[in-house]
């Protein structure tokens, strides 16, 4: 089989990005170490949790996109397949970096303190679920499942590169991915409840998990779009990506943020309507003392602005403009995570957890170093797939607006 090689320039570019990412990662970790000594345990670990969760949800979004692609995918899935595959390969790293969150359990979670639980009937009732050993076991289970799926899909995909006609292999990938999407929904729900929602153990929302999962999918698409649009001018991508692919990815991003807004608003409407004291506390902590501005910015920049831009056909067909919207969504995902997590430590009083930026850079640098390394390894899309014909219409994709 005639293998198409990626442009040397692209490989070199990815290599230099990997080095930059590594440097940023090391600097971020130094900043984190400084933060550990300069701030309180609460501030340090909550900030770390925000930065770490941000990158985990990018990897998880990539994982669910990969599984959707293997189940139903068309051209849009084939063109981002290598990007999302590479992103899922960071999950083992994220599991290792989770150790820092584990070390922070006493600072992050009220339910981990025996003396607090002893005086709290509700926490006693929740103790069979919310206790440290079970928390650790659950998190290990999530990561084993995610890493296992990511490992197998990557392995089979690379195997498919060598034997593209192996129908049994494709079937295996589909048979893992379809139930994998269901398993993903369950594990992400439990993981978000454990890691984030249980910071405020008296409060609960059953829609929280899907809100996090859909946000992760939006992050996965935003991240993949940014990377893919950056590779557009290099071979063989320049000959593959068509206007319709850019448009499809734009539609996916639009669908993800719409679904995110839908579930986020549903949670708000239900709690607002019922107006029960034990439920409204969560919103009161997040809509007072300055946090309301973050909430309003979140509504407008995480939903309305990208929504209206993505409604316009021209935005979705111009790679440069779509990339900008993807950046906005990705940045707002980080702001959203700050708004979800940090008010628990600073209720009704706006404060910026600067450790989260150090964690964003530190964890992100390592994440991206692994990501670019994996992407450089296999950066050519599965051209043998009959659904991905190589054409020469890529010029249309550059700034062409219809």
């Amino acid at each position, binding site marked *: 089989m005639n293998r198409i090689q990626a442009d040397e320039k692209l490989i070199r570019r990815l290599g230099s990005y990997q080095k930059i990412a590594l440097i940023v990662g090391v600097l971020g970790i130094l900043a984190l170490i400084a933060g550990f000594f300069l701030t309180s345990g609460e501030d340090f670990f909550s900030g770390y949790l925000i930065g770490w969760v941000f990158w985990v949800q990018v990897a998880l979004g990539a994982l669910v996109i990969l599984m959707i692609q293997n189940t139903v995918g068309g051209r849009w899935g084939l063109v981002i397949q290598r990007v999302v595959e590479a992103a899922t390969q960071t999950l083992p790293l994220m599991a290792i970096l989770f150790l820092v969150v584990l070390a922070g359990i006493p600072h992050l979670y009220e339910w981990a303190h025996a003396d607090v639980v002893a005086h709290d009937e509700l926490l006693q009732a929740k103790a069979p679920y919310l206790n440290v050993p079970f928390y650790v076991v659950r998190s290990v289970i999530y990561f084993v499942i995610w890493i296992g799926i990511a490992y197998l899909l990557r392995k089979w995909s690379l195997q498919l590169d060598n034997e593209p006609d192996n129908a049994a292999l494709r079937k295996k990938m589909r048979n893992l991915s379809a139930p994998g999407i269901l398993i993903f929904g369950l594990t992400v729900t439990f993981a978000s409840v454990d890691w984030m929602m249980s910071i405020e153990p008296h409060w609960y929302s059953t829609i929280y998990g899907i809100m996090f999962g859909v946000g992760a999918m939006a992050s996965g698409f935003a991240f993949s779009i940014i990377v893919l649009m950056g590779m557009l001018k290099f071979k063989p991508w320049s000959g593959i990506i068509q206007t*319709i692919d850019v448009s499809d990815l734009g539609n996916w991003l639009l669908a993800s943020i719409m679904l995110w807004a839908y579930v986020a608003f549903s949670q708000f*409407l239900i709690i*607002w*309507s019922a*107006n029960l004291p034990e439920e409204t506390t969560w919103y009161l902590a997040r809509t007072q003392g300055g946090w309301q501005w973050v909430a309003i910015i979140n509504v407008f920049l995480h939903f309305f602005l990208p929504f209206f831009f993505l*409604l316009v056909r021209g935005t979705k067909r111009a790679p440069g403009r779509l990339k900008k919207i993807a950046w906005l969504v990705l940045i707002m995902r980080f702001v959203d995570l700050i708004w979800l997590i940090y008010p628990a430590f600073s209720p009704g009083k706006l404060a910026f957890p600067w450790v989260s930026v150090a964690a964003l850079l530190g964890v992100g640098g390592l994440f991206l170093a692994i990501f670019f390394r994996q992407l450089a390894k296999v950066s050519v899309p599965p051209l043998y797939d009959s659904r991905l014909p190589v054409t020469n219409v890529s010029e249309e994709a550059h700034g062409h607006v*219809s």
Partner: protein
Amino acid sequence: MSESIYGLIARFDTPEAVVEATRRARQAGYRKMEAYSPFPIEELTEILDFKPKIQYLVFIGGVLGALTGFALQYYASVISYPLIIGGRPFNSWPAFIVVEFELTILFAGLAAVFGMLGLNGFPHPYHPVFNAKDFKLVSRDKFFLVIESSDPRFDAERTRSFLESLNPEEVTDVQP
């Protein structure tokens, strides 16, 4: 004869052929022309420089739907029949959003359907193109390109030989 016909129609067997023919006709300077196909062909839209306007109507429909939804509920619960429910304000806008959303979809959908009909010029009981030979095949497996006689560059003889040069299956007159 040349002035009395609606135009000339060329029949093609494949979508690629009609796309190529339309592109060449466009390059040759013809503007008043139309391509017909059993299914949508995106390239044709671009070559014919067809600028759809339906999305503006749908957007306006959606905005009107949202405003109607809000006005309806605002009038009912603030002006016409104010009732205190669960201690919430009369203008409970978060609760209004559900109906606003539904009406946005409804109005946008209606705008899409009726806007499409209107922009297509329906109802349109008569169109000369149906006089063309074998035109009914357009809903099965044939592709057609019509150059109208109202095009400034139209000339019965030269346009016919131009169309013949595009490798059609057949070129025929379209009676008005």
